[in-house]
């Protein structure tokens, strides 16, 4: 006898959903036969508001595009504006930007540790990792003045130089975190529940991955080695030595393995930045922002965030305000067309584990 299909609404307020969105699933027993992503719960018309502000004022909105990792959005916008204007960025600022981006990557992965493990019922991991993330937020507070939203990377460089003795603090935090990663390996990756619930779940088809627009750790979790930092190097990534980890399989386990190795690479990059950072200016001053008109044209800058490639398209009509600023988030593809496809045939209980493994970030979809 065929079981009767039932429609369930997961979200928009649900502990397993990463933010305010809903997945409407049709289930037969415990198996999902159809999934639809429903968004629209937190649209804040940021892109409309940006059009009504001058080029610099948008930064208060940009960092709110994605709460766990706001820096790549700021960086891509700043770089697109610089490309449009042809503004040079001092070398020191580029190094500081890379350091901020990598620290943000580690902080965001720490949050992901908690989300991914929490979605499988392993709550201790989240309590540890959110505590450890605070050490990075402390660094951000000292450097930028803000713990979560920084508004630190801006056109022409960064907002202020590193405070005295900051390098030592960064290195000390990196040493601490590197030791901590072994504890996470024992607690999470050696855990048999984690292995059982992630291996073979939510498999992305390797042959279709690029065509489907999969980017970032989900793509590298299919064994495909693509990373914007290597393919289309920005800032000073071409001068730094790091490995882009990949893992065969395409399931949640592979994506987790990629992220696990990427944290170590990020620590490696931060150490190199501290080692190689040159002196000099950190900011190529822009004119009065109220009168700062950019030449007519458009630009698109891509940055590798934890969720994958993010990009910012800006268009200028030659005025003091952007004609259009359009953000491309990785979740825009991952959480809609890809997620709807991946969920079919999976167990109802795996929805939040799959969502977390894709790094779904609803504010990035709606903006």
């Amino acid at each position: 006898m065929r079981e009767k299909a039932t429609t369930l609404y997961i979200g928009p307020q649900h502990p397993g959903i990463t933010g305010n969105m809903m997945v409407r699933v049709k289930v037969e027993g415990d198996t999902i036969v159809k999934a639809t992503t429903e968004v629209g719960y937190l649209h804040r018309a940021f892109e409309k508001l940006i059009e009504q502000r001058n080029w610099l004022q948008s930064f208060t909105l940009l960092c709110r595009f994605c709460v766990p990792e706001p820096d790549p959005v700021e960086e891509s916008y700043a770089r697109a504006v610089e490309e449009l204007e042809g503004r040079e960025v001092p070398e020191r600022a580029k190094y500081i930007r890379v350091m901020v981006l990598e620290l943000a990557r580690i902080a965001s992965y720490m949050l992901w540790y908690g989300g991914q493990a929490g979605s499988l019922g392993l709550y201790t991991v989240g309590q540890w990792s959110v505590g450890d993330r605070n050490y990075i937020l402390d660094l951000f507070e000292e450097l930028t003045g803000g713990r979560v939203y920084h508004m630190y990377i801006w056109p022409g460089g960064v907002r202020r130089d590193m405070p005295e003795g900051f390098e030592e603090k960064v290195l000390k935090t990196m040493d601490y975190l590197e030791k901590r990663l072994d504890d996470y390996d024992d607690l999470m990756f050696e855990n048999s529940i984690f292995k059982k619930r992630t291996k073979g779940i939510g498999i992305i088809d390797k042959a279709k991955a690029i065509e489907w627009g999969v980017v970032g750790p989900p793509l590298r979790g299919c064994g495909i080695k693509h990373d914007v930092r290597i393919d289309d190097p920005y800032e000073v990534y071409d001068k730094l030595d790091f490995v882009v980890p990949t893992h065969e399989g395409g399931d949640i386990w592979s994506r987790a393995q990629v992220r696990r190795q990427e944290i170590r690479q990020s620590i490696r990059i931060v150490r190199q930045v501290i080692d190689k950072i040159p002196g000099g200016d950190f900011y190529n001053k822009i004119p009065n922002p109220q009168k700062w008109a950019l030449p007519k044209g458009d630009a698109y800058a891509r940055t590798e965030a934890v969720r994958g490639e993010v990009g910012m398209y800006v268009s200028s009509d030659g005025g003091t305000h952007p004609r259009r600023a359009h953000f491309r988030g990785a979740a825009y593809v991952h959480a809609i067309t890809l997620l709807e496809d991946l969920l079919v045939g999976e167990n109802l209980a795996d929805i939040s584990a799959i969502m977390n493994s894709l790094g779904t970030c609803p504010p990035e979809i709606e903006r």
Partner: protein
Amino acid sequence: MKEIKKTVIEKITTHFKEVTAQQHDGNRVDFFIGKEEIPAILFFLKDEMGYNHLSHIACVDWLEEKEFEIVYIVWSYTDKIKIFVHTRVERENPVMDNVDMIWRQANTYEREMKEMYGIEFTGLEAPEEFLLEDWEGPPPMRRDFDTEAYAREKFWERPGREDARDVRETIIERTGEELPDFAKKYKR
């Protein structure tokens, strides 16, 4: 890099007659083409030339020129070049061909453009609303849509808050300071 850019431009200009190419610094090439040719050029870029990653689709409202500009940005993992394909569509009753049979994620972009700019995509399978629910107003991302005027017309002040006012007015009253020139246009 220069060699690859040259080959790309040559290939596209020989296959498509009505196309204008433009070179940029770095790894960027721009093509300007009529809207009827969009599915063909994107198919060609993806299947024949390996530009298989759809990075972005952006829409810009050029209100004064009575046109929308739609920009498709594609990336090749082998050539390591990003190609911008620009097209223009009239603002009155805009209709475009949909391209979600080439990249299915284009469907999401097109659904958003349909709601936010009112562009119709022929053959687009999007029965459901995307971001806007029960929206009856004009497409909100169009330049002539005034967010504040719409909000004032649609919503009303909460009773008991009639005396609520701009915080800057209070500051001016208390300190006797002048409002800076640039802030005056934001004054209620």
